[in-house]
């Protein structure tokens, strides 16, 4: 069976280009979201623990192009005009009430793992800790003590006295942005459409209910998924931007509360918007691209920080901003340390992987940016913070995964994809593993502790676009994660530390290229003379006193397919008509989103939800 090709559709005068370059056949002028509840076997996911049912199928309205814009799509297929960066729908999910602990699933991290991270300590979950219950948009980090609970984890920039006065204290009333969104006459914002009964709906909102923030095209929507059915589809607030398309956004889990949600958004134009949902006020950061002109691919609040957030720009820079600070034109500060002053010379391909344009320890902290790091000139496509608030995993278009100790501003590991770009990254809830998805159709599992690739997971039929752990089905030996891709599939995987085996072919064969491993001690002995290409070991020259080994940069080789374990999915299903762009796990549901505006909420199997109900 195959699908007949569509009739010739060239030229189409009014086509709205989808985030992934697809087309919406009929440009819907209709502006309201549509909620449906399709049922049937094709809307069920059968996994070991039971069946997930499609609860809600929300179709977000794609806004028509801004009147000032020309026709978005150039009908000429060979037009060489570069297209603006786009992203499919991404969601930020927020539950305002402090979440109940999930301790049953978690035990203390076994010390026997010999973690050279060793820094996080999962003790009793401290119930009063707000930040340990936060929800990040990818659902990966809800249960782990962040800086506020673990005295051992330093806070980013705490050594810098220039930064401390601005650091907020807990208990103090949260600061709100200045400009009122509704009354603003900024040209940046085209329209703001609050719900008629916004106040009432907010009052009715159950603190346990799910708020969803979503970007679609030039619109940004705030929805309450816990409200009753007909109203559920109607956004509490919709913001239409003029030129900017929001590509990424995040909610600050540290500051969220029953009357306060800090949202930070990054736009295709490089602009950043800090938006407080309840007061409907906002502030623009990097206005007029004063700090960086490049589009923002990912933006996240620094764990445990009220004010600081990190944005990855598509020109390969990571910039820490402070929502309270003003912007100022940014000059890279020359850094005296040899490691960072390194300037690439053509003889070696040694473009230093972490170039500090401005250190967090810089004394000049009057204005944004707080810190700025250049990691390459290739697009950064995603990054994630480790639950222990020390590390940062950054993936970019050149197929590199970087593990950065952002507290020390040091690059720790540099991995390379099997081939093609990495598109997404996430940390496991316990911080031991990192997942990446990429253009090699693979989900890869990397061990932070052992500093190597653990497994490659084939199963997608196209590029992977998002990965996320399901923290409600993870314990300290078993991990559940999900991935979605351009193939419109949702794949679920169960990964057990003990069950991974190398491919059987590996034991029989001992080819030179196949015997690659990247454990730190072995890599240390490796020299340039090694036959294996790319087997270089270099170290940053400013080794810190403690844990020199740990912080030494290792550039890892690509492991051969024949020696790397593979993991099959436990479930694979086409769940949408369009390439998917986002997946997230919540306590009661799994949420997926596609590039064309479909957000689907899959209810977990009823009998097993008990584990999380407490």
């Amino acid at each position, binding site marked *: 069976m*195959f699908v*007949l*090709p569509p009739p*010739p*559709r*060239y*030229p189409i005068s009014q*086509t709205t*280009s989808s985030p992934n*370059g*697809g*087309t919406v056949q009929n440009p819907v002028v209709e502006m309201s979201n549509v909620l449906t509840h399709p049922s049937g076997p094709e809307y069920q996911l059968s996994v070991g623990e039971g069946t997930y049912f499609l609860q809600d199928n929300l179709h977000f309205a794609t806004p028509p192009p801004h009147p000032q814009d020309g*026709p978005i799509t*150039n*009908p*000429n*297929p*060979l*037009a*060489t*005009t*570069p297209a603006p*960066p786009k992203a499919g729908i991404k969601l930020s999910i927020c539950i305002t009430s402090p979440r109940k602990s999930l301790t049953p699933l978690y035990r203390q991290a076994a010390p026997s793992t010999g973690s050279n991270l060793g820094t996080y300590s999962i003790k009793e979950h401290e119930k009063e800790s707000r930040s340990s219950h936060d929800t990040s948009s990818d659902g990966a980090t809800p249960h782990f003590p962040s800086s506020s609970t673990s005295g051992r984890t330093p806070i980013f920039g705490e050594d810098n006295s220039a930064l401390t006065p601005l650091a907020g204290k807990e208990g103090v009333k949260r600061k709100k942005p200045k400009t009122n969104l509704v009354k603003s006459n900024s040209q940046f914002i085209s329209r703001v459409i609050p719900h008629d009964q916004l106040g009432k709906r907010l009052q009715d909102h159950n603190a346990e209910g799910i708020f969803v923030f979503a970007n679609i095209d030039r619109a940004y929507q705030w929805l309450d998924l816990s409200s009753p059915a007909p109203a559920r589809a109607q956004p509490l607030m919709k913001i239409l931007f003029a030129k900017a398309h929001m590509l990424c956004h995040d909610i600050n889990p540290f500051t969220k509360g029953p009357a306060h949600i800090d949202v930070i958004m990054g736009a295709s*134009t*490089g602009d950043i918007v800090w938006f407080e949902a309840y007061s409907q006020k906002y502030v623009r950061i990097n206005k*007029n*691209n004063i700090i960086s*002109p490049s*589009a923002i691919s990912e933006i996240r609040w620094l764990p445990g920080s009220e004010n600081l957030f990190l944005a990855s720009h*598509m*020109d390969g820079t990571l910039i820490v901003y402070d929502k309270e600070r003003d912007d100022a*034109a940014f*000059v*890279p500060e020359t850094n005296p340390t040899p490691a960072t002053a390194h300037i*690439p*010379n*053509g*003889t070696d*391909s040694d*473009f230093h992987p972490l170039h500090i344009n401005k250190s967090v320890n810089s004394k*000049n902290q009057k204005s944004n940016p707080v810190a700025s790091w250049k990691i390459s*000139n*290739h697009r950064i496509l995603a990054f994630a913070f480790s639950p222990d608030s020390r590390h940062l995993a950054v993936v970019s278009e*050149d197929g590199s995964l970087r593990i950065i100790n952002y507290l020390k501003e040091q690059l720790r590991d540099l991995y390379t994809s*099997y*081939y*093609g*770009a990495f598109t997404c990254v996430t940390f496991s809830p316990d911080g031991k593993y990192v997942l990446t998805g990429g253009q*090699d*159709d693979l989900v890869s599992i990397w061990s932070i502790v052992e500093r190597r690739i653990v497994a490659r997971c084939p199963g997608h*039929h*196209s590029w992977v676009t998002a990965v996320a752990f399901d923290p409600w089905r993870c314990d300290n030996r078993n991990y559940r994660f999900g991935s979605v891709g*351009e*193939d419109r599939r949702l794949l679920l995987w169960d990964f057990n530390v003990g069950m991974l085996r190398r491919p059987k072919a590996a034991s029989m064969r001992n080819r030179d*290229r196949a015997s690659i491993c990247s454990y730190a001690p072995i890599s240390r002995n490796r020299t340039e003379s090694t036959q294996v*290409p*790319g087997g270089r070991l270099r170290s940053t020259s400013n080794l810190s006193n403690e844990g020199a080994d740990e912080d030494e940069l290792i550039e890892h080789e*690509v492991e051969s*397919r*024949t020696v790397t374990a593979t993991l099959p999915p436990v479930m694979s299903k086409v769940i949408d008509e369009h390439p998917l762009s986002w997946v997230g796990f919540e306590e009661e549901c799994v949420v997926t989103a596609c590039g064309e505006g479909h957000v689907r909420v899959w209810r977990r199997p009823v009998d097993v939800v008990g584990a999380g109900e407490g």
Partner: protein
Amino acid sequence: MTYPPLRFSFAVSLTENIHETQPLRRLPGLLYPDPDDLPLTHGCSPFALTSAGAAEDRSSLPPQGVTTREKSANMASFFNRMRSSAFGNTCYCNSILQCLYYSVPFREQVINYPKRTPLESVTTTSTGQSRIDPNAIILPPNHPSLTPARLMKQQPQGPNSARTAGGPPAAPKTEDKEHPDYKKRVAQARGPTISMTYDNTAAYGMPESLFTSLKDIFEALLAHKSNVGVVSPNKFLEVLKRENEMFRSAMHQDAHEFLNLLLNEVVANVEAHSKKLEVEEEEKRKGMNGSADKTGFEQALASATPKAVPGNTGWVHELFEGTLTSETKCLTCENVSQRDEAFLDLSVDLDEHSSVTACLRKFSEEEMLCERNKFHCDRCGGLQEAEKRMKIKRLPKILALHLKRFKYTEDLQRLQKLFHRVVYPYHLRLFNTTDDAEDPDRLYELYAVVVHIGGGPYHGHYISIVKTQDRGWLLFDDEMVEPVDKSYVQNFFGDRPGLACAYVLFYQETTLEAVKKEQDAESLAAAAKAIGEMSKEPVGLGLKTNGFMNGIQHVKSAVSPTTPTIEETNGYASLDKAVTEPSPIVEPIPQSPNEVTALPQIPTSGMPNEEVKSKKERAKEEKERKAIARLSARQEEKTEKERRKNLEIKRKEMVRKVVEDTKAAIEASKASKVEEDHRVAFENGTKEGPKEGHVAPLGGLSRFKSTSKSFRKPRIFSREPGKEEPIADADEDVASPTGHETAEKPEKYKHRFSGLRKKGSNMKLL
């Protein structure tokens, strides 16, 4: 039968026999404004596609033509490239030829086979006669009538001239600078047009064949002094059509099929030639054996030559050939039988929303042989149910992947084009290798894409996007060449409006180190550009005009040097052009006076002084800045100013630094890559002739360098919708008869050597 009108072949989509029978038929995008401007004989197409008569006319041009040509050779600085022009509907041929030409090892082998005597170079034969120009019709690119200014003027005033002379009615009303017609005209005006009507078969010592004419084209491309130009592969097409019935019509042909045919032909020609040589040698040896007293020298010669020549006949195989193993497991007796097959390219079935990786996986998936398709088991004897799977045993150096976009549909009784979204990464490894495959993790990089534009298999247009070693990615659309961004390559997944889909993908072997090196170089270049761009722009203003300033990705790498002049009428285009990035590779640009006039804004002129100044100032102001920074907050404003000042200066400084680094990097990589050097030297040698061979590299290199200059230029155009409909109709009318015809094509063209298609009911492809 009637030929379907061509969809996108703009400027030169003339049917083959136009100069013989058809009345003068001009196309909307014509070159010559008035008939009296140039004497044209019997409706020869604007840029000398064919006949000898036209050649004479050209040669009788006043001498001024020659001088302008030379000027233009200086001026035409952008692509050291020639374009294969369309000859009839030959975009299938052009796109494939471009891909092959930029398959560096393939090109080198073509050039180097058969082995030359030391006296010969590419440009001269052993007799000292020039190989390149003997009969080539070379149009002066800058004949007065062809200057862009003339082209501009001519359009509005020329309705009664060529445009109405039988051309299609869809002439552009207003001059649209983004219109392909226009671009193509400019392209033709810019460089010489070489008409490949001659052959050097005698020089090669081979009978005329596709290989020899291919070699002719490659050599002409390589050897021509001009950077820009158009090549009409007339001879090549002549041979092709003479020997292959299916390519004889002016119909739309399948690019993949052509690739397959060409590769097989080249193999055959080369093998035939070496066999012939062997036979000759054999005879010679026999003759010598007969003579009693042969000198040691003769003996050595006799033994050496035959080895040398046939020794490298297998190069097509070496490059393109891989081996597939098909394992068939009889379900009755569990016996596994293996069979190896060679392939020159892989044809993979497509799934909706899949990737090339997935398509390749699927290619190697197990397949049940049952029912009517049972397997004859030798052991059990008789037809049995079996499982079959095909895996790659030997990986080719160049992996040509054919995406089966054309699928036979039973209910419509004809081929349909599939518009599935199939994504392809820049790099690839193969998952479907056998366990004993050599180097199963071989890394491939994408270097060429052939794109089919059109709604169906029976009409449409082919273009190619090719990664060149020195110019980045180039878009080849018949006689138009345009530099494109790297991200442009991934515009043809098949889901965009405009019906353009990647059809053949060329991946070549590479290593991770090479990839990293390249990425670093890209980074540097991008950084240089980005910084340069920033330094030219007032801070805070950005390139907000289009709303999307995106660092690297949006920096266009180059634009033709002539276009700025033309586009000055276009207000915003020239505005945009004022933003000029310094090229990543700086080298004094040799500028003829002509060029100066052509380039009103010369970006580099002011730079050196500023830089010198900035160096001094920088040191001074560095101090100042630090001093000021220590001051209290009262002086914040002052600091701010100072900082901004510094900012600009530093950026300039950075530009210079990065530029220097880039230069160093390029220099170094050149030095390190021995083969590369060898190649360059070779190319130059071939350009300059053997005698100046040792001097040549310098000149050649500097020419390479001088040509990279960057402008930003928005390229937006919309095509007139009117052009569209008739074609769509034509599709309906013509498609079914042709469908039958193509379906009944002689088998021998289908599976000559490889083009391995997975067995199945749905296999017939154009």
